[in-house]
């Protein structure tokens, strides 16, 4: 039921926004067409500005993935994750999440093909995927767009969130599906 309501909401959200904002603006005597074009002009600049930042981050992450370093890292920390009851198979999906959106989706899909989407692992990796964003991508794009090079505490802050999300996902899945 909740899912249906939200489903309807997300279908309607964009059309409603695209209708309400210009209409409200028009009643307030905004020259809607001119304003739109004026704002849209910036789209190209912003997109081009983030290219160097994206190349830097995604190339490094791509190389890291291709080298097989992730497998070694997983072997190293799996005794620790076994302690908290995180299945070893699900670990790569959790660790890849902050680094690469497509990578973690790929891993989650593979695991669901292997174990089935309705298995505990399938539900757990689905929750992992939905519960945090690709931290490094967000940082590259958002800071890149305004030319920020010194990110200060933004990365550690984001990673604290990722870790909390991982533990919370494991905890709630154990209770609900365990």
């Amino acid at each position, binding site marked *: 039921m909740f*899912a249906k309501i939200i*489903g309807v909401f*997300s279908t309607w959200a*964009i059309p409603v*926004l695209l209708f309400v*904002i*210009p209409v409200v603006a028009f009643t307030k005597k905004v020259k809607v067409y001119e*304003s*739109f074009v*004026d*704002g*849209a*002009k910036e*789209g*190209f600049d*912003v997109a081009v500005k983030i290219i160097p930042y994206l*190349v830097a981050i*995604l190339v*490094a992450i*791509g*190389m*890291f993935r*291709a*080298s097989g*370093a992730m497998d*070694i890292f997983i072997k190293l920390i799996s005794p620790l994750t076994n302690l908290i009851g995180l299945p070893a198979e699900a670990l790569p999906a959790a660790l890849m999440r902050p680094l690469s959106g497509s990578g973690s989706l790929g891993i*989650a*899909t593979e695991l669901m*093909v292997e174990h089935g*989407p*309705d298995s505990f692992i*399938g*539900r757990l990796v*689905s*929750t992992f*995927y*939905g*519960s945090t*964003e690709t931290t490094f991508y*967000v*940082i590259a*794009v958002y*800071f890149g767009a*305004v030319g*920020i090079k*010194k*990110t*200060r*505490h*933004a*990365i*550690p*802050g*984001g990673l*604290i*969130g*990722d870790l909390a*999300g*991982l533990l*919370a996902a494991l905890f709630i899945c154990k209770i609900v599906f365990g």
Partner: protein
Amino acid sequence: MLNYIWLGLMAIAIFVGALNGRLAEVTNAAFEYAEISVDIALGLIGIMALWLGIMKIAQEAGIVNFLAKAIKPISKRLFPEIPSDHPAIGAMVLNIAANWLGLSNAATPLGLKAMEELQKLNENKDTASNAMATFLALNTGSITLIPATIIGVRVSLGSTNPTEIIGTTIFASTFATIFAVTGTKLLQRLPMFKIGDVEEKENTDEVKEVK
């Protein structure tokens, strides 16, 4: 921070790749991801233009300002440095709302608009402000009411109840957001993340240039 992470990822990749005999794959990945990055960026142009256009209309109609005023009690605590009637607040509200609804196409352009507004208030143009870091924490934690992508995958794999993970996802992402924001707020006080040091370095650089 990014210096160490970036160098670490690349150096480990090459070191481990050499040990594993996967150097060719590592090289290919470097070229492949350089191309993917440009595809992603160029792919954003149209959607960016659309949402920045709508955003401009919303701004001129006073809608953005209205939203900013509506959440003043919250924004005052999260972003004490930002005046509560500043357009940055309105842009951030729209970005967070788009994230919650899973409208990622709209979320990124609105988020970048918010960053642009935050940058106007930032005194060190190459250094992240506290407000920016807090805003990013809200984004990386990112509460999603409908994780549409993963639900799609579950449907295609024949799940009997593809949406059953919505509840667990909301729970976990709420936790992630609370910890990301609290963590960021606490970390900003640490001496190693002070803006002051950075400023000094910049000043000495400028002095060198003058000489």
